[in-house]
């Protein structure tokens, strides 16, 4: 759309050039009026094209972007992520600008599964208004809901912290992206991985294989560079093979209606999904992570 806008402006500029040439500068006031009339055209036409189409075109929060803007944003956000990994908004932007192909793949996989189709139809959203956290906390120990609650509690996370999608130019794929994002913490819980560097990398490998999102793939490949020596050894010996194996063997997690499994026992739930639990569980104790 903004590309259209630029073209329109170039076109108007050409028109304007023609206009000023025709008037041959005989009367400066005349040219001034011509130019102001033409610039009014810009204001009258271009805005009506852009103002309504720039934002919220396919869904609330949507910002429509040209291919050029997407590539620039992808490059920029990639660099910003490297410089400051805490910029989660940049990680999101990177995921969205590089994601559409993978999202189409996920969408097709979801469409070919009955539960996936149901999710796409009902479009459930995970945040504090749709999920009763207190209720999850009151569930018996060992249930999936309680484990998720413990995960959020010990790390100080909130399901509301997941950012909305802005740069996907399709409402359906936007939901897939959002669902992926909102399920990320649930995948952590299921895999039993804490959100430290090692746990995050293992989850990213798992997600990269299942979703094929380029953002996950690059995080899985480049994330381990930041691991310390001890963790790196554990990563290569234990967690990387396990993450790859379980990602291939387990059910496609985007096709799981997590909200319907809160009360299920987590080991039973894992078995049902054919998800191999971590060979050596990672336990987070304060700042340090220990293995049992």
């Amino acid at each position, binding site marked *: 759309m903004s590309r259209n*806008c630029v073209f329109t402006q170039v076109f108007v500029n*050409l028109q304007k050039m023609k206009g000023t040439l025709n008037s041959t500068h005989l009367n400066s006031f005349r040219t001034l009026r011509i130019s102001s009339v033409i610039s009014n055209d810009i204001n009258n036409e*271009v805005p009506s094209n852009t103002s309504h189409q*720039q934002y919220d075109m396919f869904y609330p929060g949507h910002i429509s972007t040209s291919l050029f*803007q997407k590539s620039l944003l992808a490059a920029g956000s990639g660099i910003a992520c490297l410089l400051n990994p805490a910029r989660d*908004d940049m990680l999101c932007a990177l995921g969205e600008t590089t994601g559409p192909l993978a999202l189409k793949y996920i969408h097709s996989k979801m469409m070919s599964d009955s539960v996936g189709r149901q999710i796409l139809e009902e479009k459930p959203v995970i945040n504090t208004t749709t999920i009763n956290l207190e209720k999850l906390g009151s569930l018996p120990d060992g249930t999936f809901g309680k484990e998720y609650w413990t995960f959020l509690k010990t790390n100080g996370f909130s399901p509301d912290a997941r950012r909305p999608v*802005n740069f996907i130019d399709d409402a359906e794929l936007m939901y897939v992206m959002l669902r992926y994002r909102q399920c990320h913490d649930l995948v952590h819980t299921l895999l039993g991985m804490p959100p430290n560097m090692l746990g995050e990398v293992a989850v990213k490998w798992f997600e990269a294989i299942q979703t094929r999102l380029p953002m996950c793939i690059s995080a899985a490949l480049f994330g381990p560079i930041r691991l310390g020596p001890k963790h790196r050894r554990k990563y290569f010996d234990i967690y990387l093979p396990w993450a790859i194996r379980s990602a291939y063997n387990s059910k496609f997690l985007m096709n799981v209606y997590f909200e319907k499994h809160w009360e299920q026992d987590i080991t039973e739930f894992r078995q049902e999904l054919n998800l191999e639990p971590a060979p050596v569980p990672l336990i987070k104790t304060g700042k340090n992570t220990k293995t049992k």
Partner: protein
Amino acid sequence: MAASFGKQSLFRLSRFSCRCKTSGFLNTKLFASPLVTSGCRHSSSSAHTNSNKQESEKHETHFGFQSVSEEEKENKVYEVFENVATKYDLMNDAMSAGVHRLWKDMFLERFSPTPGTKLLDVAGGTGDIAFRFLKYVGTPVGSTFSSSASVAQSSSDDSSSSDSEGTQVENKDSFSEPDINGSHVTVCDINQAMLDVGKAKAKSMGYSSGISWVKGNAEVLPLPDNTFDAYTIAFGIRNCTHVQKVIDEAYRVLKPGGRFMCLEFSEVKNPLLRSVYDSYSFQVIPVMGQVIAGDWKSYQYLVESIRQFPNQETFAAMIKSAGFRFVNYKNLTFGVAAIHSGFKI
């Protein structure tokens, strides 16, 4: 949807010309926003408010390429600058590749204030112009005047009381004394977040005299008539809802003989350069905003608002219509920005 009223206002008759248009998607928002506006804004519309429908036909103006009600614009502009205040300088450097510094230097060069000048810098929250001014007139850094004698405060009571309902003087704090030579700059900005950034900068630069900070609306300045030798507004007037009112206010607060100077984005006339400039603005700047400041929409607004602002000639005519004389302008970087100047005689 028609947008700009500035472009059409070559003559004074359109001073208070505002859009009275209904647009479906806006009307819903109109009732939600509380009216925190200056009194004069609705004087013309109050005459014909009977039915609900007419009431919803509030004056519309442009916010970038969107049409919004006038109250909404003020709030939206406030939000924009609240969001970007801390990243403002970094973003300016990134977007203009540092050229905005040169523009501001040239602005000061053209202004060439003498020591002893009493300057009002409007919309100058982060102090870019104010600090350049102090440097130019040679205000010593680090001089401490501990006495809290308020110079401007004593005089600000008389004439500004007339429009006190509309003004937003919330913290008229730290009216510091003029420096040794009598130079003084009053920085006025409607946005507290921007003023905070400026104050912090002043502190780190060591200025304690010659500068004071006022929170106020450029359309209804909380300052008395005939007070200042010069009035500057750099990259600020574009964001005001009523540009003509701002110029009129400048005329009011200036002493006879005082100078009005404005640095603002303007129109690139060369069609080729213009298309390059437009592509850069629309394709690159919002992305930069997202990456550097985490804010796409504020920078989309920025590039749109530049296109909505009157061009050099129209703006000069507006300045003339406020009563200024010897009005002229100088283009910077092919007209990407322009310096307008006028005198109150």
